[in-house]
């Protein structure tokens, strides 16, 4: 019979023993070594029945097919654009997969230029980590103006909330346009005062992402700040 050696929501370091016995299953950044389940990254434990999941608290964004992310154009070549998406590898946005119709021998800077910010979706990742992007689809576009802040990628689900409840609340109460990328980049557009309030709220979510009653706390903060 196996035994769990950690509590739910405990922080563990790489190499720490999480459980012994074959009746538990490793998930996330945990792995099995013989009879034991070991952590491979610094992260947070979540125990759900027989599955011991390790959610990494740090590290770069790990790309997944279907993720909507915010990228920055850093280079151009004959068949598309090279995009920095905040992970270990650069992604490619091919001219065939953009919304616009690109004419032959056209100047590519007409569509997307250096340092342009784009909301894109990951369509394909090969084993050697070549990442393909697209801007075809609802909500995918070039972003003009606004500010970008970065949060740890593992906190993104908290920033968005259940069915977007958290982000909808921030949007409504601050009157800002906000887009959250799965890679942890958050684009905020609005007047200076409201942008700062939204930034403050998101930073608070990032810092206190694992405390209960977070939505109420953020609501309180937003009400207090917007009345000033």
């Amino acid at each position, binding site marked *: 019979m196996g035994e769990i050696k950690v509590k739910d929501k405990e*922080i563990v370091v*790489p*190499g720490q023993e999480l459980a012994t016995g074959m009746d538990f299953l490793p998930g996330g950044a945990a792995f099995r070594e013989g009879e034991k389940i*070991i952590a491979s*990254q*610094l992260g947070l434990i979540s125990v759900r029945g027989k599955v011991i999941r390790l959610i990494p*608290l740090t590290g770069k964004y790990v790309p997944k097919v279907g993720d909507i992310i915010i990228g920055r154009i850093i280079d151009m070549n004959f068949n598309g654009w090279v995009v920095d998406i905040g992970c270990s590898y650069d992604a490619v946005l091919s001219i065939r997969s953009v919304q616009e119709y690109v004419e032959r021998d056209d100047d590519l800077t007409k569509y997307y230029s250096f340092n342009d910010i784009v909301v894109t979706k990951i369509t394909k990742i090969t084993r050697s980590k070549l990442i393909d992007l697209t801007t075809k689809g609802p909500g995918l576009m070039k972003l003009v103006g606004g500010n970008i802040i970065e949060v740890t990628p593992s906190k993104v689900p908290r920033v968005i909330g259940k069915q977007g409840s958290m982000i909808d609340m921030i949007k409504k109460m601050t009157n800002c346009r906000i887009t959250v990328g799965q890679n942890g980049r958050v684009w905020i557009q609005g007047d200076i005062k409201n942008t700062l309030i939204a930034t403050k709220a998101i930073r608070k979510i990032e810092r206190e*992402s*694992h405390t209960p009653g977070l939505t109420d706390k953020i609501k309180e903060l937003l009400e207090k700040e917007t009345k000033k």
Partner: protein
Amino acid sequence: MTYTKRPDGRKFDEPRKMEAKVGIIKRADGSAMFKMGDTIAIAAVYGPRELHPRFLQNPERGTLRCVYDMLSFSVPDRKRPGPSRRGTEISMVTENSLLSVVNLDQFPNAVVDVFINITQANAGTRCAGINAAVMALADAGIPMRDLVSAISVGKVGDKVVCDLDKDEEDYEEGSTDIPVAIVPRTGEVILLQLDGSIKKEELKEALKMAKKTCDDIYKIQKKALKKAYQEFQNE
């Protein structure tokens, strides 16, 4: 002549006072400081990021690069800055010992850069460097099999001692310095260098001492890492 008393009054199996801190360099992906007595090492980790020039890339797994350097003001006589014969060797042994715990299979063609700087040196710098580097790697979120703890043990005069300082390393009647790095969970020895002469029994005793001290260092490293991320929970 026998060696009866250590210059700083420590017991023969007692290491110097140790301190660890994680997240000291803001712009790095991971960073840490490790201090043992008057020896201070800081480490910064960048990556995983794409490796250039391209011919150095490995399409099967990621690459690890370590750079160890003593800063010019770290020793009483100014150290000539930049890479040296000694620095290159220590970079290499550090890289090899860290490679046995990190797992870079998910990062083909990428590189993880580890920079270790010694801001203050009083013997045992490569061990302090490894201790700091492994914490910085964990802070950067690199997948690892375990942490690494390192300590130097050795023989001064006729006594087997733990964690030699500079005075002991330069002891007139001869001393032997043995840096050891250990994987705490399994007890594997992944670095062992020996400079001098020592008897078989004494080496065994020294390694036992190293194992015991490394377990203590592991606790310090673990505590420092957890402390750096605890604030997310408690506020």
